[in-house]
């Protein structure tokens, strides 16, 4: 009885991962998501890419599995997809990397794509977006909007992509508001809405009046900001509808064209494993529409800066850049090295928080 019950419970737990029906067609592409495809965040941005592929590539069939945890279950999920005929697998969550690498060895004829991964194989490529470029622009909006000069940031973990976004936001804000600070609070989880809300409350009590975030779904942060009547910068996806009044802008990932290119190249037999780094210029990261509170002059300024970044005239990591303690990281006329950017482990001056 006991074991049967546990088996039933386990089956129901697994049911969450078996909701899609992979179909056979010219080329079938499978997507694995760590959360729900409508999370208004990381996973919805990935799923928007899937929908783009569906529209853009003739004859393609896509299928997906949601809520697949970053453990052996993802191996099972991907094998099911491959068994059903998928030729390309988008393993969209960071923690899927080691499992995808294992399967890439086992299925050399299947193409794997991993998001933000730092390892590759002959049949496993990676794609990422330099979201910090857009975060710098959002920082300008935040720097203009804050009255207290205190901006907050709710982050999951102190890892390089998160630190890049925090620093870029601070640099953008300081470019228009030299005294602006960014206070960082870590939740220790990509998905803990209650902690997100508590973090926003803690920040507001410290005088923060603009908040940004880097967790899977920014919705709890936006809802908490709305309750406290402060401004908010979105991340991953355009969530303006949750709080139009408080919304400044957001940093959006636009994976569609990148994914469609991969699918077309695989179909044509020209695909080669590479690490795709999208940016503002390629359109892989974008700025979401402005909220009504953003002044016209600020919008014009941000558009101008965006153009400068796209044209290569403005570099987010161009000196002078000082660390929290005042150490010069890049002098005037210099820039941070690509290595230093990729493995970012410091905060710039004006950021309050810990990097470990």
């Amino acid at each position: 009885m006991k074991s049967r019950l546990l088996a039933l419970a386990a089956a129901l737990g697994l049911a969450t991962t078996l909701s899609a029906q992979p179909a056979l067609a010219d080329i079938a592409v499978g997507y694995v998501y760590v959360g729900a495809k409508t999370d208004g965040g990381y996973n919805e941005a990935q799923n928007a890419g899937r929908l783009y592929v569906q529209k853009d590539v003739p004859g393609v069939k896509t299928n997906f599995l949601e809520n697949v945890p970053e453990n052996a279950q993802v191996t099972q999920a991907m094998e099911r997809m491959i068994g059903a005929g998928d030729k390309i697998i988008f393993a969209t969550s960071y923690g899927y990397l080691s499992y995808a690498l294992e399967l890439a060895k086992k299925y050399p004829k299947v193409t794997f794509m991993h998001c933000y991964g730092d390892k590759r194989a002959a049949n496993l490529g990676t794609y990422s977006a330099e979201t910090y470029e857009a975060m710098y622009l959002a920082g300008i909006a935040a720097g203009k909007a804050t009255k207290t000069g205190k901006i907050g940031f709710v982050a999951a973990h102190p890892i390089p992509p998160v630190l890049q976004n925090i620093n870029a936001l601070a640099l953008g804000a300081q470019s228009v508001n030299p005294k602006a600070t960014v206070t960082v609070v870590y939740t220790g989880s990509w998905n803990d809405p209650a902690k997100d809300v508590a973090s926003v409350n803690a920040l507001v009590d410290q005088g923060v009046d603009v908040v940004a975030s880097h967790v899977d779904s920014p919705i709890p942060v936006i809802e908490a900001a709305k309750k406290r009547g402060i401004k908010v910068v979105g991340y991953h996806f355009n969530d303006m509808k949750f709080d139009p009044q408080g919304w400044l802008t957001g940093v959006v990932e636009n994976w569609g064209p990148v994914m469609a290119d991969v699918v077309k190249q695989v179909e044509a037999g020209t695909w080669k494993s590479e690490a795709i780094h999208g940016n503002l210029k390629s359109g892989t990261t974008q700025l979401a529409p402005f909220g009504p509170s953003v002044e016209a002059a600020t919008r014009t300024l941000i558009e101008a800066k965006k153009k400068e970044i796209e044209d290569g005239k403005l570099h987010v990591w161009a000196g002078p850049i000082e660390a929290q303690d005042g150490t010069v990281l890049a002098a005037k006329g210099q820039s941070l090295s690509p290595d230093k950017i990729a493995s970012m482990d410091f905060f710039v001056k004006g950021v309050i928080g810990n990097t470990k």
Partner: protein
Amino acid sequence: MNIAAWFGLLSIALLMATPVLLAMLGEMLTQRTGIVNLGVEGQMLVGAAAGFAVTYASGSPWLGMLVGALAGMALSSVHALLCLGLGVNQIASGLAIFFLGNGLSAFYGAPLVGQQISGFHSLAHGWLGHLPIVGSFLGQLTSTVYLALILVLLCGLFLYRTQWGLVWRATGESADALRMLGKKPVALRIAGILTGGLFTGLAGAALSVDYTRTWVEQMTAGRGLLAVGLVIVARWNPWLALPVALIYGLSEALALRLQSMGADISPYLLGTLPYLVPLVVLLLSYRASQRGTSMPQELVGVFRGMA
């Protein structure tokens, strides 16, 4: 820190502690009848999903809270059926409820992710928020915080000040004695489990409908399991549930406050505070107590594998 900062910390603590407090009260009422239900986390998740769904569909957060509570109760009835009806080991049955609630809520809750609800009206602009000195603090709290505080009062009065409360406690202390008095322990235990389910479902709904205004799979993030542990720290006593839940909430709030003040301590170490502090309280309070544990005696059998 000035008085406003202390009030700020306390309001964060109370808001954060409310779902845990409700779940603690529920599990306390269950365990007082001599039954352990480890499925609290699953019941909270089902309550959170159902509460959010009904609030989304009806626009009424109160209706959402009610249905969330009932959903928690419905799931707990499976526990009642398994361990009282079929004699399944309570620990195994509770774990099954945990996984069942987790799977069911994730599966049926998937279409709700990313949906928007309006939640309760803020109390900040009512008469409460305009009181001198404490107004901004009291206005910061939400309807479910006040509901939870009232329920602490009701549970305490019920258990210690009513005839039924005495019978309820006796069920957990000695089912045989109860039988001799002509009462049916099984009926009381069913009531214990279902009431626990009701409270834990409410706890989940408070989390999704009121506190975060969002539903996402596994959003309880272990707080249901934590509540089961905190019942022991609070010695199965509803009056102690509030301070114990507050210790948890304050540790959580303090960890965030220290971070936002730029303290040079790893956020991961700070993140252990909400678990470490209650553990220390547990150790100290057990050392200080001369009377040993206040565990309901019928629970002893559960851990000996007799029930």
